[in-house]
């Protein structure tokens, strides 16, 4: 769910929409804290990883190698892909927890 919605939203909106999507979905579906983090993390992180991997493969990794050299002084694309997964995943994960937590606050009140 998060994956699908965020992928569509990111085609049109700035990257940080991933936080909004993860938050909203978790707010709506109210998973527990741990599950919320996991679904936010995987929902966003996997989309980022797969799309990045697709670009990497389609372009023979030319820019991936140069960026890995620039950011990490390493020619390995794996690290760059991993960091991409992590950054997207962490934002998604935290937003997911925040979303479900907020929902629980509202549910308790009502």
């Amino acid at each position, binding site marked *: 769910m998060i994956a699908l919605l965020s992928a569509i939203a990111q085609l049109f909106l700035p990257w*940080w929409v991933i936080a909004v999507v993860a938050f909203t979905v978790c707010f709506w579906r109210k998973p527990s804290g741990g599950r919320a983090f996991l679904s936010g993390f995987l929902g966003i992180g996997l989309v980022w990883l797969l*799309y990045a991997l697709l670009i990497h493969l389609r*372009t023979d990794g*030319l*820019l991936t190698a140069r960026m890995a050299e620039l950011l990490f002084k390493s020619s390995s694309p794996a690290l760059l892909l991993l960091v*991409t997964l992590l950054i*997207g995943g962490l934002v998604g994960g935290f937003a997911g*927890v*925040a979303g479900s937590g907020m929902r629980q606050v509202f549910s308790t009140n009502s």
Partner: protein
Amino acid sequence: MRRLKALLFGAVTIALTIALNRQWGSVPAFGRLLSPFEGFWQNAEKPGMEPEQTLSIPGAREEIVVRYDELGVPHIFARNDYDVYFAQGYVTARDRLWQMEFQTHAAAGRISELIGDRALELDRYNRRLGMVYGAEQTLRGMMADPVSREVVEAYTAGINAWINRLRPSTYPLEYKLLGYSPEPWTPLKVALLLKQMTQTLAAGADDLLMTNVLQKLGPAVTANLFPDYPFREDPIIPAGTKWDFSPATIPLPPPLNGPDSLLSLHWPGHDHGVGSNNWAVGGQKTAGGYPILANDPHLNLTLPSIWYQIQLVSPTMNVYGVSLPGSPAVIIGFNRDVAWGVTNVGADVLDFYKIRFRDGRRTEYLHGNQWKPVRRRVEVIRVKGKPDVVDTVLYTHHGPIVYRPDEKPFRNNIPVGYAARWVAHEVDNTLKTFHILNRAVTYDDYVKALAFYSAPAQNFVFANARKDIAISPNGRFPLKWRDQGKFLLDGTNPAHDWQGWVPADQNPRVKNPPRGFVSSANQSPTDPGYPYYLNWEFESPERAMRINQTLAAMQRATVDSIRRLQNDVYNLRAARFLPVLLPRVRRNGFTAVQAQALTTLSRWNYQNDTASVGATIFGEWIDFLDDAIWQDELSDPSRPLRHPNISRTLQLLTEEPASVWFDNVRTPDRKETIDDIVTGSFRAAVDSLAARYGPVGARWHWASHKGTGIRHLIPGLDAFSRLNVQIGGGPNIVNAAGRRAGPSWRMVVQTGPAVRAYGVYPGGQSGNPGSPYYMNMIDTWRKGELYELLYLKSAADSHPRLKSTLKLTPETK
């Protein structure tokens, strides 16, 4: 508790997102940068090109067809001249937008906007030098001419048509790394780019250093050590050529009483890596009977490349060559009938005048017997993350005051500063030169085109299918008395002002000289018989001599023999120095490495090829030798001085072996001889190499020692650069591939009934580090090979090298 937890995670999420969305110093916004939807991933390009694409572009007047060949060179076919320059702007921006904007931001003193106060002094320097003021003057000149105006406006509209199609995800990568956005292009930016070239090529000034030398050594010794014409020269216009004009009245030098109080002005010296070669061989000396023209401008080797190949076809022209991204038209190239190229002249077109203000308010300055008003120009430098810096620059009729007296607090209380008189501050219409050359057919067209040219002065070489060859050191030259501007000038004395201009039709020029070729390599434009004073010193003549010797001996020249001369790595400087130096080396007391180095050098064939060890030792030795001879007399911690040039040093070694200059005045108890200096500097040079590289071996090889690098315009971006390129040659060698500067474009054109041309530059057509066309031509360049330049006749031509067609159509209403 729950509420607290929820709020905490909410806050963490927001903080994390914001943190990843903004730049931290030089650390980019990681979230935005790494997002595959928006970040750098979007700049990765797949190999190959889209075979067909049609775009509706607001601003195009009729349908424009752009065909791309397999190197990514656009061949533009337009039905009118507006559209051809519109499309040039569009396709150039498509490949090079970031570079175009960055270079013009640099010229305008706006780098602090992008990277913060690290660039503040650089920006302030450019503002003080009057770069924006000069660009505004050029803009006035361009806009006053209806033809130039249309060209610049069309080009600007084309660039903006591309910018308007961009979204943050499709911005060039460098915008994402530095965290900013492109702004609309303007005609002023074209002018700024031309100023940038003028600054690179015509803003060197040793006036202050020479004045300090003059004070230290006195006029007679200074004249002896810094003569106005080199020991052994081979000028551009063959020596003895007669001038067919009666010169304008040349001003007489006023009595020598230059400024006496000096500021420690740190002016960038002339960059010796920057220079160029060009030549044209007449039909009588070529195998095909038609002239061949060659050019290789030596500029800083950068990525994206300084040049961009393009073919422009409209009803009034069909021209191919290289353009400067940011300026319309082709700068070096050919059409069906003619070919032309440029090298830098190095005339003295920047002088400094000492200004005397009336009082501490600095609202008036003395000139002749009058107090004249000072004009103030406020420069606002925007600084990323900091408040704006406001700088008021004082202008006199000479020009802007680069360094104000109050910036030197230990000076006495006389309010003095220096104003810069620079040709770049003149109104000009340089663009028109290229507009005419792009369409030229005859020698007369070439002469007509050159008259519009202002700065940076260039040696324009020319050849055409009617078998004319010509060369002209050309630009706007101030009319000066002999040596005017060799030293700092007195701004209060009207006799020190520039006295007008050398008439354009009296610039040095030669057509079809008897020797059958013309050439230039930044050496003296003429022999001392030319009536006007252009400068006292030009580039040392080794490259020129080598080219002229080779061309004089060449018969039945072909494109390939010309290409080989462009790649010649013969070190003529070594061939001139070593026979003088080697017999003076005394071997007693040599270490094993020193002895081995001397043997290697004695057996060296003077070729600076990649694996040469002799070239490395010689290069190092000459630097040590120069310091050993001159450093003791000509260095002073309190004021900058300079050494005599290499020609004078060679003369000293050859003709004045008993000269007092060989004695090291820092050792009062000893009197060194020429042999002591030669031997001592050799040992020191070898020891220095051994300390860096260990025993003589692969690390001593010339190409590794030299370390030619082709670097991204952002300093330190090694991942987007190509370092340690294995190429021979070097400074003062025909193949001038130095550490940071070198042949930035090599071109050979065989004129004739069907023109054929060849070329390469060390980079690629795309400025995108994520493109396969970013640095794809470097190895061809390194190996000294050329690509045939695909000169199309019509948009319908078919050729296996054509890979993609882009149609730009006017927006349908």
